[in-house]
């Protein structure tokens, strides 16, 4: 009983409930929804669940980065645009080195994309930590500029490229799971080890709770803030790589468009408060999976993909309402009133 109680208290528990509900909805519409079959042309496993896992990989990446940014009481609105930059850089590099050793070309493309991503994150970090601008305005500027940078990189075109190993990132499978999903989980595990086995995670949280107090405690906020924004940008660029490797094309205005809300939503679903000061990596991962499921479900139920933002908006409004003190107090009062009645009875 105590176990169930703690489980219900864990924020990501409700994320899992949400995923289960959405999947049930899909199964009601089509009983074969969860079936996993073998694709006869590729010989790989295929099914809706695997699709969901594959498209969740980029969302997990940006949600992971956003988790730490929000934990420092910041926000990174540029992740969607940086995804486009990462994708554009990779596609252009693959085009430029075509014909060379395919694996080498793949690593060059990944390296270039992550490097450019890191640079943009560095700009965000310096603007927030050194110049002292509000995070949302620095990253809003970056959101604007990075979208333009993606266009400049490709010359305004939607560049496509061919590279077999790079294509495998999203289209291949490891142990029956989409490669991109496996990679995303590996990255999540590595990052959580870094955060929880070193003091970094603790310092991020302390900056989020009270930057002045943590400075007095000997934590220098600048390098940590910069690290957080660089990490977020690198992860966003990785997400961009996952996205473009699926179709081997970068859509400079569409790749990562409005994905920043997905990231924020995943983090909030995962129980990280927007007020900063704590983070839950597992929670954000569950949140990202929920969003991927929501995206697929809305499509599957025959609603236009352009309409999904409305559903996400409703989810986020409900979540922020649940986080608000007014609603909490109201619920607490209801509970108190009920228990008082029981006593009287």
């Amino acid at each position, binding site marked *: 009983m105590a176990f169930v109680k703690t489980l219900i208290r864990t924020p990501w528990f409700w994320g899992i409930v949400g995923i289960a509900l959405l999947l049930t909805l899909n199964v009601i519409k089509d009983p074969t929804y969860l079936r996993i079959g073998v694709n006869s042309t590729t010989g790989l496993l295929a099914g809706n669940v695997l699709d969901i896992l594959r498209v969740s990989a980029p969302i997990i990446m940006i949600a992971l980065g956003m988790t730490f940014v929000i934990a420092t009481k910041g926000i990174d609105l540029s992740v969607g645009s940086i995804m486009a930059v990462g994708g554009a850089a990779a596609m252009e590099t693959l085009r430029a080195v075509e014909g060379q050793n395919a694996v080498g070309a793949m690593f060059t493309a990944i390296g270039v994309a992550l490097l450019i991503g890191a640079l943009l994150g560095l700009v965000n970090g310096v603007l927030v930590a050194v110049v002292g601008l509000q995070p949302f305005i620095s990253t809003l500027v970056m959101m604007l500029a990075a979208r333009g940078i993606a266009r400049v990189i490709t010359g305004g075109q939607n560049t496509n490229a061919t590279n077999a190993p790079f294509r495998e990132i999203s289209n291949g499978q490891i142990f029956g799971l989409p490669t991109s999903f496996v990679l995303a989980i590996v990255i999540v595990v590595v990052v959580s080890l870094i955060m929880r086995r070193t003091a970094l995670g603790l310092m991020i949280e302390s900056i989020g709770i009270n930057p002045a107090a943590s400075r007095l405690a000997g934590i220098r906020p600048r390098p940590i803030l910069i690290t957080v924004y660089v990490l977020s940008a690198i992860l966003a660029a990785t997400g961009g790589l996952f996205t473009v490797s699926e179709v081997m094309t970068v859509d400079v205005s569409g790749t990562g468009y409005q994905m920043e809300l997905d990231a*924020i939503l995943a983090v909030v679903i995962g129980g990280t408060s927007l007020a900063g000061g704590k983070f839950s990596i597992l929670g954000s991962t569950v949140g990202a999976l929920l969003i991927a499921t929501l995206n697929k479900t809305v499509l599957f139920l025959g609603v236009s993909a352009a309409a999904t933002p409305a559903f996400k908006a409703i989810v986020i409004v409900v979540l922020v309402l649940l986080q608000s003190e007014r609603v909490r107090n109201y619920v607490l009062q209801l509970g108190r009133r009920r228990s008082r009645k029981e006593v009287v009875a």
Partner: protein
Amino acid sequence: MSAPVSSPALGAESPVQTALGRVWGRSQSIIPTLAAVVLLIAMLVYAEIAYGRVFHAGTMSSLLVSFAPTIILAVGMTIVILSGGIDLSVGAVVAFTSVAGVMLMNIGINGWLSIFLMIGFGALFGLVSGILIQYFNVQPFIATLAMMFLARGLASILSTVPVQAPEDAPILLLGTDFKIIDGPKVNDLVLTPGFFIAVLVVLGAFFFLHRTRMGRTVYGIGGAESSAQLMGLPVARTRVWIYVLSGSLAGLAAVVYTAEVGGKAQNVTGIGWELDAIAAVVIGGTLLTGGAGYVLGSVVGSLVLASLWMIITKDGTIRPEYLTIITGGILLVFVLLQRVLTARRRR
């Protein structure tokens, strides 16, 4: 309320010093606006020298008419930012209200009523943001980001293809050209009712901010919310009204824009307009932290963006891809300028 009361602490200094201090203090809040005016003039002069035909009634009128919706949005955004908030939903609200309004006209609702309803829909989105922000302590940018997604999604549920208003819809009257000056060849000064609506909005906002109690409260909330509360200003009510006003102005901008493009409305309209509006406000000298700024500055900011857009189209060699980078760059420069000035004032 309007005249600053000299604090006793300043009494020790000589009157000349206080006067100088006041001039210096005021000049610092006006420096970014002046910088924007200088930038605007420089851009226009550069464009005239480099490409010609800029100080030209035809060019000017097309510039003013096509930027009327941006100016209206920038006015709403100024009021929101003055209160220390932000409204990211305006672009999406424009999309929703224009699609919804045109569809109402198509199903036979009275044209004027539809226009009224468009503004009403905008106000509703603003009301929801305002309530979330004021009564549930949601950060403004999260609440309005959610409204942005809601409006954009609802617009897409209504229609993902362009919808066209009927030919006799009164909204088209707002897009008719009025020849003010009949110049030689194409050098006419041609303005539309939409432009005049924008002018009225600017004048109305100017009056609201500087001549009404609620306007002073807006500055008060942005300057120091707790002081405003202690002074007994109606902070809660005003804050909700600020977002209602911003939403209504977004609805009005949708009316003007829809009229200007001949009654066409689409769910993808207005992507990134909130950024244009924010950029216009910031370039115009309004502090992003709230409490200081001018609505006329935002008009100058909108015109800076308009002339930037004009230079890029006239030049032809600047690829349109650079437009967002340049806008972002200018925005950054002005935010940094504000940062430097506010840091100095605090010292």
